[in-house]
């Protein structure tokens, strides 16, 4: 970004928004160094972006400034959008908040508007028209940057949710044809559904006969999720595996009873150890049978 110091065509008779905008852009390029410094100064005065060093702020400010002026000139926010995304990707992990990003963009808008005012105050008619050309473009830019930042945050959040979901439902094989499914954390409907699918897939792949589902790490459960669990157990039965549910906390046990969830066909054991013993007994019993 080095379109330094183009000579401005500053004829006050310039008419038409396009021409005015050109004049404006030329003015902003000419005063690039000064305005950029003023902006960086305002950012530190307002105590924004404190996680970043002054040098970093200054170099990012330069980039944003150039992109900003380019966007004013071309009226196309695509480059700025791409840059804002990329910037967000860098600063989000460092804990920069949405209000700070909006704050600095609005500060730049103020700094530029103020300097335009100072520059054109001799001719109020021209100033009026310059501001008419500047304001909609500047607002559009502010919205673009803000939205890019929020979108990037949402993308990061979604990615993390996916990662947590992947991590949080392992299906472990402990013995031949004996699986454990430890569930930790919040069990919501999408996760319960995903869990059912993983469980059934694992039963098929490992030719499991017994599955122990341990919910020691689950704090609460609601009716929908309880029904999902029951369905998971019934579906495993249809695939030829018995399921043992272990580690129901006192709270969950009471909730299930209060909700009237039918757990009649579920085999439950107090803790994982007991569940494993029971599972081995079931599997061993069958294995022994098969050998005779």
């Amino acid at each position, binding site marked *: 970004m080095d379109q330094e110091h183009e000579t401005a065509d500053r004829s006050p008779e310039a008419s038409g928004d396009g021409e005015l905008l050109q004049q404006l852009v030329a003015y902003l390029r000419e005063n690039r160094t000064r305005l950029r410094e003023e902006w960086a100064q305002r950012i530190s005065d307002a105590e924004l972006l404190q996680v970043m060093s002054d040098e970093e702020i200054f170099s990012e400010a330069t980039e944003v400034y150039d992109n900003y002026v380019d966007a004013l000139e071309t009226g196309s926010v695509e480059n700025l959008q791409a840059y804002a995304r990329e910037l967000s990707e860098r600063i989000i992990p460092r804990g920069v908040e949405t209000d700070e990003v909006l704050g600095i963009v609005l500060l730049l808008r103020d700094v530029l508007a103020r300097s335009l005012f100072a520059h054109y105050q001799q001719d109020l008619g021209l100033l009026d028209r310059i501001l008419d050309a500047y304001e909609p473009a500047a607002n559009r830019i502010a919205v673009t940057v803000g939205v890019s930042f929020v979108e990037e945050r949402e993308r990061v959040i979604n990615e993390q949710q996916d990662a947590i979901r992947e991590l949080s439902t392992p299906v472990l094989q402990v013995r031949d044809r004996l699986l454990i499914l430890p569930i930790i954390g919040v069990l919501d409907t999408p996760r319960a559904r995903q869990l059912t699918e993983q469980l*059934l897939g694992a039963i098929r792949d490992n030719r499991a*006969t017994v599955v122990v589902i341990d919910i020691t790490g689950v704090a609460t459960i609601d009716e929908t999720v309880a029904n999902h669990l029951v*369905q998971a157990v019934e*579906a*495993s*039965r*249809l*695939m030829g*595996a018995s399921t043992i549910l272990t580690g129901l906390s006192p709270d969950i046990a009471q909730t299930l009873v209060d909700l009237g969830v039918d757990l009649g066909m579920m085999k439950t054991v107090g803790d994982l150890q007991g569940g494993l013993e029971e599972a081995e007994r079931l599997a061993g019993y069958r294995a022994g049978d*098969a050998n005779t």
Partner: protein
Amino acid sequence: MSVAILRQGGVLIASIQSDLSDTEVIDLRRRLAELVGTDGARGIVIDVGALDVIDSFVTRALRAIVLTARLRGAETIIVGIAPDVAIAMVQFRLNLEPLRVALDLDEALAMLHDR
């Protein structure tokens, strides 16, 4: 005819190869009722692995086969219910009681031999 019935030792193996029409389901039920109990057939394994859908009609027919076979002195085991089919059946509350299910043919044959 989309269902082949094979005999292996004392076990009849009905392998369903594609989705069945209602008539084919009834036909299967009739043929199994005839075959079971003759020539010492004491068990039936029905492989439903090729079915994409198991609806209430098929479920009822399977139960009828199980009960009929029981009256003729044979045990029936259903094998090969796919994960998605299992989920759908549970969601539609299609109950396979008192059917016995097994993961695959090996398992089912082992269960029958144990008897």
